[in-house]
């Protein structure tokens, strides 16, 4: 999250002749950023070299917490779970929200109505979503017996083979509307003249989608994927309430592992080391995704429109 808040360094070093607002205007944002992002982050880095159970005195521990955090098999497993959730979420959410976005971008009345309905899950808090799904997925009193469909009465949250997909489904259910909205906006920005020209050239709907819509949505896809990837580093509330990381360690992803280490096992040192790892991974991923987008991000795609 921190990367998003960071003000562009170029703003502060504008030459005296540069036009635009004064560089002083960055001060409020900078103060916020320093107070709420940089200072806590430095605190976390400091804590990662100490021993602290949250109550007593903070004692210097050197690299012990880092050794614990990096060699622990649970941490490794948490990393694998995080990557799985990240990749599966992308694979599931991008196509669905892209297609829904293109669909709802049309101007027909019924599509506008559907767009509003699709939007509803986003209005619910993650905690409410998790509690509702937990109740629905109960094998004895949930939707399976309720609807009289035995196939729905599975060991959804208790089987290691199923639980990851349940989690990915619930995440998708909650966040697809948001990404649909981004794609809808992206599609509406594409000038109609492109499609008119393509129609004259004899391109069908599918060809229009592949040769015009998709390339024009390149940056929208990057934006939405960045949010998905960085979001999966921050998925916490939903999974915490839905599975609490279980069964065993099957859905204990990195942010949850950090929380449980810090606030259940009360090992703030190791939890801080995990926090720092999380920040580093987030920064690297955000940078990598920016790179994929190319350097000329501001260049227009609308030439010739």
């Amino acid at each position, binding site marked *: 999250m921190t990367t998003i808040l960071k003000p562009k360094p170029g703003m502060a070093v504008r030459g005296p002749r540069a036009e635009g607002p004064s560089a002083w205007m960055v001060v*409020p944002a900078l*103060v916020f950023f320093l107070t709420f992002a940089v200072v806590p982050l430095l605190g976390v880095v400091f804590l990662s070299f100490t021993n602290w*159970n*949250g*109550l007593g005195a903070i004692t210097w521990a050197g690299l012990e917490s880092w050794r614990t955090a990096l060699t622990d098999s649970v941490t490794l497993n948490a990393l694998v779970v995080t990557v799985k959730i990240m990749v599966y979420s992308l694979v599931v959410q991008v196509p669905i929200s892209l297609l829904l976005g293109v669909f709802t971008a049309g101007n027909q009345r019924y599509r506008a109505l559907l767009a509003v309905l699709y939007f509803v899950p986003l209005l619910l808090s993650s905690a409410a979503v998790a509690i509702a799904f937990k*109740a629905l997925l109960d094998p004895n009193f949930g939707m399976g017996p309720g609807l009289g469909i035995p196939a729905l009465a599975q*060991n959804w949250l208790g*089987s290691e083979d199923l639980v990851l997909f349940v989690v990915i489904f619930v995440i998708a259910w909650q966040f697809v509307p948001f990404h649909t909205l981004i794609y809808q906006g992206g599609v509406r920005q594409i000038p109609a003249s492109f499609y008119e020209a393509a129609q004259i050239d004899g391109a069908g709907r599918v060809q229009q989608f592949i040769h015009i819509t998709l390339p024009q949505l390149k940056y929208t896809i990057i934006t939405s994927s960045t949010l998905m990837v960085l979001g999966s580093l921050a998925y916490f509330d939903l999974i915490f309430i839905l599975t609490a990381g*279980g069964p065993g360690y099957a859905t204990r992803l990195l942010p949850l592992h950090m929380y449980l280490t810090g606030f259940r096992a009360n*090992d703030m040192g190791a939890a801080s080391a995990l926090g720092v790892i999380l920040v580093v991974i987030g920064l690297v991923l955000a940078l990598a995704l920016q790179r994929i987008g190319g350097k000329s991000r501001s260049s227009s795609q609308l030439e010739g429109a």
Partner: protein
Amino acid sequence: MTMRTTKTLTATASALALALGLAACGSSGPADPAADSSSPTMWALTGSSEDIFRSSVERWNEENPDASINQEFFANDAYKTKVRTAIGAGEGPSFIYGWGGGVLKSYVDAGHVEELDDFLAENPEIKDRYIPSVFENGVIDGTTYALPNNNMQPVVLYYNKQVFEQIGAEPPETWDELMALVPKFNDAGIAPFALAGQSKWPNLMWLSYLVDRIGGPEVFQAILDGEEDAWSDPAVIEALTKIQDLVDAGGFVNGFSSIAADAGADSALLYTDRAAMMVHGGWVYQNLKNDAPEFVESGEVGFVPFPAVEGGAGDPANVVGNPANMWSLSSTASDEQKEVAFEYLKDGLFSEEYTQAMIDSGAVPAVNGIEDQLAASDDKDFVEFVYGLAQDAPSFQLSWDQALSPAQGDAMLANLDQIFIGKITPEQFAENMNATLGK
């Protein structure tokens, strides 16, 4: 230039003001308008004893308008995290609700709870009202830091009499009898045991009882003392093997690891005749009275001690569970708050109405001299059973997750979860847990 500096200053000042405002939001919670900030605060749990705590404080506040108490309730799992963070930040309540054990010890070590020895010496009648084995739970290294505030909660085996009649069975007294019942109930299409595996801690009741029955209380004491390889004790391995045997034999309801205890879905299986038995804490009886009164009133709910294990070294009269919950006093409370708090511990806690209300709710308060009241109770069978169980128990072991340090408790619950789903072997469990000894 002057103009510009002023603007900048204003902007900076307002940003700071905003930041301070936000920070201030974090520290003030909802407060009872009747009680002012000098009143002691009390955090307690929702659920079985909630009404008793609430009416006790309401009565207290009515009788002592100038010494009122400000009370708040929290859900179990959330409370455990919240109270620790609050205490660490010096924002904890005056009355700290706890379980004794490792968590209380960590508060004591950090100097966050008040010593009660002087107070108890001045008021000897307070100590005398408690059952000694339960009172001992609030004593750390010879000093008392907590006083029991509710009922004894031994873990027992609940069963549904109607489904037992249906297949003509008797509740199990030994582990072999228990295993023999499993296929019978499965053939009849009834789950032998309900279990809320998703909440993890209900799994622990099985492990702690089996280890105690097989190896006696010494096995867990060695773990508690951090002796090397204490988790590799043959009794632990045998207990874990027995658990996996029971899981493999279909002893637990299908999908048990998807069932959460906080919604009461496990007890619901018992009173809807879908499960025959359930091993659970004494508080379940109170919850059953609320959720399924007809099940309790018709006498369909049965209860027996956890079965003995043939050839086991442990006394079958030993009990596992929560001796009682406790009040500790925060050492960061103001003198005024402490004064009121001591008054309440003396006169409000376990007043006549308090004890009676607790018995009426189907619970057994951790106090002496209540035999007559228990005998007059509507829930005579259950309360006398629990009272006898606790009184006669040579050992009343506190729940392991509370007795151990939080770091070990967390690892234990996660590893035990993997035992129940067959992901790891008993030997792997022992190896993983030995690595946490002394943490």
